[in-house]
């Protein structure tokens, strides 16, 4: 008799999801599915709104990565205006995006994943949480708080508020940077870099403990998609799309973001509200790809900043054979490299002489009826695509969210972890938490992916071949 184990909700990720494992008579995992069970419908309720409201509206998709939506949405609006924004505005937007990257990656690493990494997957779930980390490694927990605080403070300095700033506008930014504000940001960055380097060293020292997990946590032969700069460097704000295959060969390069639809198709499955994007030339589901820090580092030729380039070289040694780093476990590593990069890059940009230039906004009316904006959110490539009518009102919206891109890979990763660790005849917290933990590697933001908002309890269900629930485990 086959059975299904369901884990619901998955904890310590952003949003609301359920995992179900279908077991065969032998107890082996036959199938694994990641269900997104909430729906909010941002793409629908934005219809009829003026396009200039879109940045503010879509930023409300998420309380963790509003800056990412703000940037992608404003880039789509820039495209509707058919303007090229002033260079200083682009730099200022980039600083805000990098600050966002720092605070979001810090949340993922220090607060969501560190309980597993520091306390172990087999630790008592009552203490395998941030309070357990605080007791065992209070300085590391403080570092996490401080890094988030610095990222959020930079966002606040630039945007006027930490959450949902309105300073980024169609055509650029609404206000030039003052010297005082520049100095205040610069003053915090050395401390941030020290924390980032310290954390990177700590994590590297821990890595040998996780050999087993690294080989089973989504070690998949997938494609990788991300933005890169025109010269092939790590890029989060502008640039062109690149796709590499599982062997590391570039199969698409210098693709303008406006042409994303040539690369990406979106499939729908009846078990989840999250769509299943795929690389169109290879079809569904063969065209499975990953986005986010792992993909960005695999795709980039270099970071272009000193410490991050050393860390990138070390990152590449994680893969024993030549080719991209294949294990999704190493998203954690990639996040730490990106934090270092983001801080170094902010330091460099803030030193540039034109950063205080007062020409920061291009003014225009809507000059196109279709606009596309693509940026790299902390979790991966974020695409906003709008169509407007002659009055500037939205008639159609498509949002392809970082977490959505990784949907196929997350499902495959769960299956791989379940194969390695789940024995259906013996349920225990450690193995089930590993199934959850592979999802946390992707740091999914389900609020964004479904445009849903909710809390995250956890349920595991066991179903027989007829679909009857024969066992259930709930974590509040």
């Amino acid at each position, binding site marked *: 008799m086959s059975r299904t184990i369901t884990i619901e*909700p998955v904890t310590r990720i952003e949003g609301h999801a359920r995992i179900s494992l279908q077991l065969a008579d032998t107890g082996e995992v036959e199938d694994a599915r990641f269900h997104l069970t909430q729906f*909010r419908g941002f793409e629908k309720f934005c219809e009829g709104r003026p396009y200039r409201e879109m940045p503010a509206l879509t930023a*409300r998709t998420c309380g*963790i990565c509003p800056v990412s939506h703000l940037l992608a949405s404003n880039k789509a609006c820039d495209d509707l205006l058919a303007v090229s924004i002033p260079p200083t505005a682009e730099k200022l937007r980039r600083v805000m995006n990098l600050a966002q990257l720092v605070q979001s990656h810090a949340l993922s690493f220090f607060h969501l994943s560190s309980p597993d990494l520091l306390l172990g997957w087999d630790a008592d779930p009552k203490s395998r949480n941030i309070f357990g980390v605080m007791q065992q490694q209070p300085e590391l927990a403080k570092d996490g*708080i401080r890094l988030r605080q610095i990222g959020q403070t930079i966002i606040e300095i630039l945007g006027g508020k930490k*959450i*949902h700033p309105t300073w980024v506008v169609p055509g650029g930014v609404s206000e030039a940077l003052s010297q005082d504000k520049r100095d205040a940001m610069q003053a915090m960055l050395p401390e941030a870099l020290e924390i980032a380097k310290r954390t990177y060293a700590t994590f590297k020292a821990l890595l040998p403990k996780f050999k087993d997990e690294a080989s089973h946590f989504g070690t998949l032969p997938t494609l990788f998609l991300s933005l890169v700069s025109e010269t092939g460097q790590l890029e989060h704000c502008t640039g062109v799309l690149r796709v590499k295959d599982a062997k590391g060969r570039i199969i698409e390069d210098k693709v303008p973001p406006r042409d994303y639809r040539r690369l990406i198709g979106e499939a729908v499955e009846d078990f989840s509200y999250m769509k299943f994007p795929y690389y169109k030339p290879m079809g569904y589901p063969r065209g499975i790809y990953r986005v986010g820090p792992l993909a960005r580092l695999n795709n980039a030729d270099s970071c272009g900043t000193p410490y991050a380039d050393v860390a990138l070289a070390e990152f590449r040694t994680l893969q024993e054979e030549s080719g991209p780093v294949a294990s999704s476990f190493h998203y954690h590593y990639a996040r730490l490299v990106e934090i270092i990069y983001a801080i170094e890059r902010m330091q460099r940009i803030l030193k540039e002489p034109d950063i205080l230039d007062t020409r920061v906004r291009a003014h225009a009316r809507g000059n196109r009826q279709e606009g596309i904006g693509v940026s790299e959110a902390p979790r991966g490539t974020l695409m906003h695509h709008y169509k407007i009518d002659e009055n500037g009102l939205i008639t159609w919206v498509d949002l392809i969210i970082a977490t959505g891109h990784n949907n196929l890979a997350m499902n495959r990763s769960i299956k791989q972890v379940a194969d390695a660790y789940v024995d259906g005849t013996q349920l225990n917290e450690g193995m089930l938490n590993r199934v959850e933990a592979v999802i946390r590697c992707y740091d999914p933001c389900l609020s964004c992916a479904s445009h849903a*908002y909710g809390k995250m309890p956890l349920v595991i269900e066991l179903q027989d071949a007829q679909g009857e629930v024969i066992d259930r485990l709930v974590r509040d």
Partner: protein
Amino acid sequence: MRPALVIGYGSPIRGDDAIGPLVADRLQQQQLPDGVRVEARHILTAELAAELAEVAQVIFLDAAVDLPPGELRIQPLAPDTSALSTMAHFHDPRELLAWCQGLYGRVPEAWLITAGGADFDYGHFHLSEAAEHAATRMIQSVLDMLALKNLG
């Protein structure tokens, strides 16, 4: 140490859920005792723990679904590690206080003022009449609490 921090939180696109940040915005227009800081937030996030460690008093402002529309409730808060949020996206204020206690060894005097809401639908940008009345009383309550603390 800063005398007080007022944090109003909630979603500005879900009708009455916006009462916390709206009241915070309105408080910022008022004459407040020296050193009082007011923040309007969508959600409570982890780094606030560090700010709490540096104030004598914190007042959280939020909407409530378990109160009749327009009704106000004022309650003291204490650190509670069992109020652990299952998603780091959003923190219970008691959890933030527990973070503060655990990491920095102290917590401020803490209060939560909630107002019952009538309408929490998506894509709603205004307060209901009941919540609007509650907002006025919420502002007064905060001013009274700050004045009392100031006298003390």
